[in-house]
């Protein structure tokens, strides 16, 4: 963790795709338990920032540190739970639970511990029916709920949620925010363009930056 207590530290983040500058000179510090909304219209660079923190995208300039580690390094990836582009991030011919068990096996060295964590999350998020269904038979909202469950595996210190409520019904939205409430030490970076999400976050960063 940084000397200022920040769990996530973004300094001068810049990301270009060819000639297009998607994110320009973003500075952001997030402390444990803080929820920050990345708020802005589609295509404004919110998801790009999340990807830079998740380590699947390298900044063109600037730096991102998670828990003192450079984003993308193995220890940083252990600290981050990400729900990015959910529609295309699961194995379609496997059930939700089988998918979660697979990702748990990467997060947990002990297989039984991983299985317990998956079953606990299925119960907590009330997604037993979704977990029993093959992904290619799930709706977008169902897959989105599985994406949250996967992001919560391993009790990560930093949660990256990309448009997490976009396709959810009111009950599922309530369960999502409830899950975040039950993890008061977890910092969350939430990309959204919905005003109602803003009310449940501590801070807002408006995009494009």
């Amino acid at each position, binding site marked *: 963790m940084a000397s200022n207590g920040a769990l996530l530290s973004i300094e001068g983040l810049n990301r270009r795709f060819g000639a297009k500058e998607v994110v320009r000179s973003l500075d952001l510090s997030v402390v444990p338990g803080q929820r920050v909304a990345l708020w802005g219209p589609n295509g404004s660079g919110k998801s790009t920032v999340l990807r830079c923190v998740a380590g699947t995208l390298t900044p063109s300039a600037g730096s991102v540190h998670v828990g003192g580690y450079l984003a993308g*390094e193995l220890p940083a990836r252990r600290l981050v739970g990400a729900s990015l582009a959910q529609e295309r991030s699961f194995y379609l011919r496997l059930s939700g639970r089988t998918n979660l068990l697979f990702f748990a096996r990467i997060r947990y060295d002990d297989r039984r511990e991983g299985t317990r964590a998956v079953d606990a999350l299925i119960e907590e998020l009330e997604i037993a029916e979704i977990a029993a269904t093959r992904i290619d038979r799930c709706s977008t909202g169902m897959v989105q709920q599985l994406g949250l469950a996967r992001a919560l595996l391993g009790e990560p210190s930093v949660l990256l949620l990309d448009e997490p409520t976009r396709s959810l019904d009111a009950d599922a939205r309530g369960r999502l925010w409830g899950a975040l409430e039950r993890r008061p030490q977890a910092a969350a970076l939430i990309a959204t363009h919905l005003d109602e999400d803003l009310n449940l976050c501590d801070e807002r960063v408006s995009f494009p930056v």
Partner: protein
Amino acid sequence: MTNAFPFPFSLPRLGVITALVRRDYLVQRSYRLVFALDLFYGVVNLLVFYFISKTFDETTANLNGAPSYFAFASIGIAITIVLQAASGGLAHRIREEQLTGTLEALTAQPITVPELAFGLASFQFGFGMLRAAFYLLLSGVFFGVSYAQADWVGFVTVLLTSGGALASIGVILGAGVLVLKRGEILTGAVTFAMGLVSGAFFPVDVLPPWLQAIGSVMPTRFAYDGLRSAIFEGGGWGGDAIALTIFAIIGLPIGVWCFSRGLSQSRRAGTISQY
């Protein structure tokens, strides 16, 4: 910025490798007919070479101790399956992950480069071994190929060292797919060319000298020679196994390093989440 997937690497966790293998098995199993169709393809493949052998059954070429051209070719087919799985399996899996969109979700997890590379390649390799065993069984039971001289310890030893040696090429080809995306054409060309100059389906004696020279330094050449020697001569595979082991020891770290660089390049280019 430092490399997110640093080298030197740590030893892969067995649990992660087995999770990837299990996942690939479950996906493969979900296509119910794939195993049966694969076996059918194997029978047809052997039949083609059986009748080619019947058409041209006299040869003066060196068949590595094989009693007939069909015996020579059937072993070549079986071995080629394993070698193609070892050299092209990872590239194939990477491409599938790109197309289904799961590569980003996977690389966002705390998974190391060797775990990713060997985990993604392992099911294909294991499945290739099973297919090869089935081909050998078919050749023996239905097509009269004799394994009376076979040294099975030697056969397995050379097969495993071949897998290690070819896996190093496979990991490099996987890195190519990460960067180039449509790298399966490159992968297919490389594996097919290696088979061509190494005596997969015909003796290398029939090749022009310059192609024989290229083939003589290919790990596939040692693999085919060693495996045929073990099967048909009951020995003489030791030198090939040593050569393949050396190739694996040198090649695997180089392959993992290339794969690591391929991932870093994809992260810089922002293409991990792209088709």
